[in-house]
């Protein structure tokens, strides 16, 4: 496994509980895929935005979501969440 196959240095690995919290937020926000309208997602890992991007709140994360619709033309998307809604305290 090469370095580029491995986890990026900026990525935060999410636990199953974290991922369940993300799905709850997606459902609460009635999130749907902007490309196919699908509402089922697989949750990946998170990217801490607060440090790297000057427009972002200091506790912001981008969480990887993948649309479960096999026909979706662009299944990879994401949801922006504050730390409090993502990680266990």
């Amino acid at each position, binding site marked *: 496994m090469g370095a580029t196959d491995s986890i*990026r240095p900026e990525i935060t690995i999410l636990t199953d509980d974290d991922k369940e919290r993300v799905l709850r937020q997606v459902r609460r926000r009635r999130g749907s895929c902007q490309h196919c309208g699908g509402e089922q997602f697989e949750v990946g890992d998170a990217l801490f935005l*607060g440090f790297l*991007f*000057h427009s972002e709140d200091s506790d912001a994360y981008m969480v990887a979501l993948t649309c479960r619709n096999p026909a979706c033309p662009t299944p990879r998307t994401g949801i922006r969440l504050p730390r409090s809604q993502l990680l266990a305290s």
Partner: protein
Amino acid sequence: MTEAMIQLGYPAWLRIEHWINVLFVTLLIRSGIEILATHPKLYRGYDSKPGTEWARFTRKTMPTDKLYDTLDEEESYSSLVALPGHKKLGMGRHWHFVTVIGWILTGLAYYILLFATGQWHRYIPYSWSIFPEAWNDVLTYLSFKLPPLLPGQPLDAIQKLTYAGVIFILAPFQILTGAAQSPAVEAHFPWYVRLWGGRQGVRSLHFVGLVAFIGFIAVHLSMVGLWGWPQLNALMIFGSVRELGWALAASLAIIAAIVAVHVGATVWSLRSPRTVQRALGFIINRGRLSFLRPMVSRQHYSPAQLSTEHRVNGKPPDSDDYKVMAVHNFVDWKLEVGGLVDNPMTFTLADLRALADKQTQRVMHNCVQGWSSIGEWSGVPFRTVVDLVKPLPQARHICFLTMQDTGRDEPSAEGAGQFYEIVDLNLAHHPQCLLAYEMNGQPLPIEHGAPLRLRIENQVGFKMAKWIERIEFISDYHGIGEGMGGWREDNVFYDKDVEV
């Protein structure tokens, strides 16, 4: 004193060179301070790890909870001390480099004439006994008295030693330490940088040389005042002690002309930087391409020399598209390579990884601002991609288009628009010209250009575009942006070719 000086004489060439030197040295000092202002911190060794500076000329403090880059650390100095002042690094570099060309030519002429006419007797000591004599002279000055002159010579011992030191040691020292800061020289002759204690060591030494020059000027003017300013001034105007009033008027006129050049250069640079960029760049570029372009990088730093913290210049693309790509490890990212090529291609990150054996290089990154870091970069040799897409015969340059929108992403930069940089096609074949997707054995970090950045190791850092999304082979760049060869060339007036 005066009779002895008349005996040795002040030939016209020496007097003319003296005043030209005043102009050049003062231009070098002011433009050098402008260059210092862009990263007003000095370090030892090779890199510029934050917090390790031994001197700083700024009160700015940087945030710890937000990515900052070295543009945020830049200082704005007054035009009274910097040429042109007000955060105009591009202009400062143009003035520094064009002046140093003139200064070196003046210095060469001075050396030749000094030895051809016997004037070297003025400066070269005849015996080691001059050192204790010089020390006695220093003690005499400290007791507010004037020491005796050397027998049959126009100077006392400490003066003779000081002039010799400035002419034969300090001036070459500044030229040699300046040359050691060229990325092309450093890339081709890594031993030369080592000789001076590393890239930041030599930058610090260059600064010490600047301080020494300023100190020399202050002491020189004090000495002239102590020993008889009207007489010595007449010697430097007419070559003899006569017509002191006219000599005063002439010297004031010369000084006024030198001040006028400084004011003119400052106003021109602040009001019409594009014309300065074109005019001075035209002069500098001839020498740069002739002497420095052939210097191919052959750096191989050891793993132990890697910087523990590699500085950053430029902030990542602050768009949702980029952030979503990043959190998915750039699976959806694609690199388009086209333009004047026989075989346009599109690559994913996986395609690039599979394209050729990974090339790894441990090299020094030279920022245009003066900081440096050593990093290990891995990726695909750019020549591999060039060979695949087959540039057409009319292709002469390569344009790297990035995902960075400077107006959105980089508040500390002047200007807006998509960041791009253009390099000459011949650089693509350099053995250490790399499309890097890894840094220090890890996927390329976002702040360093993920997923792909360029490495051209004999150029200044800003040419090594980060966050690349498209590569275009072109025949001419004058229709792109402002037509100067890149975003920084368009907006902050740097040169397109930056071997120094």
